[in-house]
């Protein structure tokens, strides 16, 4: 039995049949592997997935600090997604408000469920306008709302016409799709329809970019922006870390979209290409080598001598600043092994960072990725939509003549595609070595089993399994929240990450798991029980 078979061994018929396609052991390098992904979880298995609402409100819309995000539903959904994701923000400018410290909900009660909640939703908005006067409101619905049929889209139209502010409604009921992923898509659609392109700014600066799929967890986005600005890029908007709907309105004026988290935001990248002609490029600012590769790809894209030179200067400066620590942590961490199980992009990104410090990833997986996140976008034509994914609206925007602008000629675009990750993404598998195991939609049982089989020195995951893993004697760090540390992006971020990893592995308390009296007797004379015989 190989390791994969050992994990599957415990499962009975139907569960086995389902799970076997979600667990892949890479054995022959280069042979493309197929993994089942983005399909329904099995009831009763303790999975780590969240819901559509969590993906829409929690992930994509939540970080937008200058918009009021109103959860239409009973209290829990909104309460849990209040301030729990570390998407830092610091709104700029006179009178700029930061709504991230607030949780807005209609707190639906029984009569609202029975007689409909639309009236309460409208009243809640009247009160928001009276008390807060925001310039933008996002309405997000939770499970019951879809069932009772409240028309939140109509409410959004009413808000726009009555108050002349921006408003978008997101029908992101938790039961839609199979995970957070559906919510990302719904959020992307809403932002595309209502926000992007609604600003009046003109395309001006040459090196103007948007940073997509960067949520500024622990300040990652700020660190990335710092480097980009130093090199000479103008960051028009970030989707959505420290995000501002005011800036997103003018996102269409950028010349290139940088995609950090492919899973959650690739829809916007594609739609902006179709509508505005903006190319996108897959970047990764997690990991030293990857940051360098990403920065150089950008410079190649814009093909400007000054920009190229500044890119190299910044890289050299940043490297010089971290060199000692990089060597130090590399010497401490080389040879360790890791498990990496996070959402839909990070499990790939962090493998690169781990390698920077000599740590090998032996097991990895995603909660809610699609096949392309594992196998690369090459498989996109092979993915057949199923009943769950068909329910999510697929927008096909047409070119907006007024704002359409191509940065590269067709020929240059084709040429560059061979050189850099232009509108492509090769997926996680490509990074992984022989004998490693990948698990899609991993569950509690599989996590336990994988740890037992692979005994990684450290396991990166989320809060739901962190403490279980630590109790099994394995250091565990949260890669959603960074255990309240960070930033982990770019050069200094890499050092922060290495420092935290080393701290976790080398905590003195690991030595005290077993009390001394369990390994040597304290009762003199009683050994073997012969004394009193």
């Amino acid at each position: 039995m190989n390791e994969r078979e050992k994990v599957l061994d415990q499962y009975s018929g139907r569960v086995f049949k389902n799970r076997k396609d979600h667990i892949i052991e890479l054995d022959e390098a280069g042979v493309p592997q197929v993994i089942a992904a983005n399909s329904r979880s099995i009831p009763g298995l303790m999975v780590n997935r969240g819901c559509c609402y969590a993906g829409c409100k929690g992930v994509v819309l939540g970080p937008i600090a200058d918009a009021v995000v109103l959860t239409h539903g009973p209290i829990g959904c909104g309460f849990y997604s209040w301030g729990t994701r570390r998407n830092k923000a610091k709104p700029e400018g006179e009178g700029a408000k930061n709504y991230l410290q607030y949780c807005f909900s209609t707190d639906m009660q029984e009569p609202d469920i029975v007689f409909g909640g639309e009236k309460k939703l409208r009243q809640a908005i009247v009160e928001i306008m009276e008390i807060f006067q925001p310039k933008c409101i996002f309405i997000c619905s939770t499970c019951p709302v879809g069932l009772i049929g409240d028309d939140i889209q109509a409410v959004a139209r009413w808000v726009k016409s009555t108050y002349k502010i921006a408003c978008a409604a997101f029908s992101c009921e938790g039961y839609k799709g199979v995970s957070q992923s559906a919510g990302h898509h719904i959020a992307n659609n809403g932002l595309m329809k209502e926000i992007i392109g609604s600003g009046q700014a003109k395309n001006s600066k040459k090196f103007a970019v948007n940073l997509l799929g960067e949520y500024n967890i622990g300040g990652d986005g700020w660190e990335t922006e710092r480097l980009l600005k130093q090199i000479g890029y103008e960051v028009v908007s970030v989707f959505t870390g420290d995000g501002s709907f005011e800036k997103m309105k003018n996102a269409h004026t950028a010349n290139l979209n940088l995609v950090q988290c492919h899973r959650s935001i690739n829809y916007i990248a594609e739609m902006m290409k179709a509508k505005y002609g903006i190319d996108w490029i897959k970047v990764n600012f997690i990991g030293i080598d990857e940051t360098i590769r990403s920065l150089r790809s950008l410079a190649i894209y814009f093909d400007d001598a000054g920009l190229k030179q500044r890119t190299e200067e910044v890289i050299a400066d940043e490297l010089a600043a971290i060199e000692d620590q990089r060597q130090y942590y590399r010497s401490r961490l080389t040879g360790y092994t890791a498990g990496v199980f996070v959402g839909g992009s990070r499990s790939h990104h962090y493998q690169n960072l781990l390698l920077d410090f000599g740590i090998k990833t032996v097991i990895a997986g995603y909660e809610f990725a699609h096949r392309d996140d594992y196998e690369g976008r090459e498989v996109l034509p092979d993915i057949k939509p199923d009943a769950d994914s068909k329910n999510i609206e697929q927008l096909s925007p047409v070119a907006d003549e007024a704002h359409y602008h191509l940065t590269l000629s067709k020929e240059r675009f084709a040429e560059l595609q061979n050189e850099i990750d232009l509108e492509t993404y090769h997926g996680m598998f490509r990074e992984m070595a022989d004998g490693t195991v990948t698990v899609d939609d991993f569950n509690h049982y599989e996590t336990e089993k994988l740890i037992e089989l692979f005994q990684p020195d450290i396991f990166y995951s989320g809060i739901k399994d962190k403490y279980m893993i630590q109790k099994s004697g394995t250091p565990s760090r949260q890669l959603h929240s960074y255990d309240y540390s960070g930033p982990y992006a770019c050069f200094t971020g890499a050092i922060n990450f290495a420092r935290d990893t080393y701290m976790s592995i080398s905590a003195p308390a690991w030595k005290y798991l077993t009390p001394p009296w369990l390994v040597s007797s304290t009762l003199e004379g009683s050994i073997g029980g012969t004394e009193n015989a």
Partner: protein
Amino acid sequence: MLEATPKEIKTRKALRVNPCKTCEPVGALYAALGVHRCMPHSHGSQGCCSYHRTFLSRHFKEPAIATTSSFTEGASVFGGGSNLKTAVKNIFDIYNPDIIAVHTTCLSETIGDDLNSYIESIDIPEGKVVVHANTPSYAGSHIVGFGNMMSGFIKYLAEKSQAKTDQIAIFPGFVNPGDMRELKRLAKQMQVHYIMFPDTSGVLDAPNKGHYEMYPQGGTTVAEIRGLGAVKRVLALGEVTCTPPAMVLQAKCGVNFTALPLPIGIEATDQYLMELSRLVNTEVSDSLTEERGQLVDVILDAQQNFAKKTVAIYGDPDIVLGLTAFVLEMGMIPKYILTGTKSDLFSKRGEALFAKFGVSGCQALNNEDLFTLHQLIKNDGVDLMIGTTHGKYIARAEDIPLVRAGFPVLDRYVHSYMPLVGYRGAMRLLEMICNALLDRRDRDAADEDFELVM
């Protein structure tokens, strides 16, 4: 911080801002974790379950296990019967608990899934049990959900018995494992034979032994829950939380109950011990008398640091009432006490405490949120806040010291191991309150006023 909060208070009819409560299922999940070898199961789509587990883990810094029916759009339209059936089979196959405690979510409640008939139609392995509770969040907070899950266990399991045992049942309410341990220590000292239900000590404060146990040692056993029908009496600690399940047990098995306030502070702890003493006919031990005397002693010693200071207390009803009673005993003024849970009883009991200690100008508010609390404070400030982590935004905005107590505390460690109940719990509270105020005095003192001895 919280710059968008205006001072002027406008009445709101529909908008909830910065809630001071959460939803029923998380309470149900917590109650179910207090049953030995129990798998809590969330009947709905997986988002709720994910949020609830995450939330409990953030408070306790412990694994919080639970499974879900993983509804998709189809189940949401046609009902979740087959999802539950599949789930139950898989849970017993893979995680092998003794009992599965199903709670509903807003989704399955809105559809109208009939859990009774679903569970009846499921093949349950020999010796295993499946119970359920209805926990629609649009009808109550996490406190209600906690009580509903207790009632669910009782309805399915408690057995009526003519012969009563010499046991007392203690319902500790929605408190930390540290509190449950302390309540048990006090009962043991009183030589009481008891069943604590539920009991998360030994589950959500389990030790690290270097190997993971899905079902740690703690928790009320299924046999004990069955035995609830035969106990002499129930002590329902925390009237708001525990009266409903105590009434369910009374109706089903004819067991009478005494509802007491959570034993936070001197008098409430006195009451707990006196009641135990009456029930089992034992004297309160010298060591407990000593603990009590120590508590009174430190209050008097430190009096000057907190007397007449005003405080805002917010969180869950029974804990807030307990804390209110104690700060009154300390000589403080609980200017605002507030819970997000809807409970007129809370306000009534709060008012009664204000009257008893003769304090005026205090308000007891239920079904309110932290936005209201902040506006009240903006209009008329307080010296101290006591409550859950979510109040830290207000504490920072208004520069008020904050003592963390209740559920949830997300940004501190160890708290769940330590009691608020009993004389020891009160002493700990006193230390936290006093330190918070003294640290503030130190921070704000000019050099020439900076004291070595205080």
